[in-house]
């Protein structure tokens, strides 16, 4: 056995193992990114209709809640993803003044004032941007070799 020849490849293998073990946060996930972007677009589109009667959009709100739940559960199932999950927790908390809070206000009041809807859409859009921005900033996995 030629030990000097084997040593570099052994060290390289060790390096790969160490590198894999050193990630403290999940890598970038294209599906999670797309789910968050889609959820943002659909949420803001439905919020824009909050000057109309809530009753006429009840089914749309239910469908959106389902979409948001799916995006949340997807991120919740990823390892080392606690910070993103905490962001979703805030976004969907009924007392956070964000998405769920807004739809509860809409339901309670029937219709909402246009200026308030505009202000809230800007705020909720920024909240989604924090989730999207964190995902986009995560380390992209290396492209697989052909």
């Amino acid at each position, binding site marked *: 056995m030629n030990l000097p020849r084997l040593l570099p490849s052994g060290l390289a293998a060790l390096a790969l193992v160490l590198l894999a073990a*050193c990630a*403290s946060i999940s890598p970038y996930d294209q599906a999670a990114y797309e789910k968050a972007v889609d959820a943002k677009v659909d949420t803001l589109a439905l919020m824009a209709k909050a000057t109309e009667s809530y009753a006429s959009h009840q089914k749309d709100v239910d469908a959106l809640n389902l979409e948001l739940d799916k995006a949340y559960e997807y991120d919740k199932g990823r390892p080392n993803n606690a*910070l993103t999950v*905490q962001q979703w927790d805030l976004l969907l908390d009924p007392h956070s003044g964000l998405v769920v809070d807004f739809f509860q*206000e809409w339901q309670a009041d029937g219709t909402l*004032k246009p200026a*308030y809807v505009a202000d*809230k859409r800007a705020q909720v859009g920024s*909240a989604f941007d924090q989730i999207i921005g964190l995902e986009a900033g995560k380390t992209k996995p290396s492209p697989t070799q052909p």
Partner: protein
Amino acid sequence: MAQLPPSTWQTIEQQTAALAASTLKGYTTQAVQDGQTFLASTESQTAGWLAQVAAGAITQDNFASLVRGQASLAAMTALKQAGLAQVAIDSFVNGFISIVISAAIASIP
């Protein structure tokens, strides 16, 4: 016991300094800038919301909800920065391990 030659340690030190500058310093500058932008926008938005309450364009309950939302947004922004800091630290740690291993391999006669 085999030891790395001083020149190898010098290489490791130089490359580690360059790595820290590129991975950690860039992140810190961006985080400070983001924090300042958030504070400035919150100040102007709050003034705008108060003017809307005075004009009757939004209710006091709406205002309270907007302030609550802004506090949540601040927490979400902090979580994003914490995550990006972890990414920067991971990148530094992985880069450092690569530097040390590459330098060690290169020093093998």
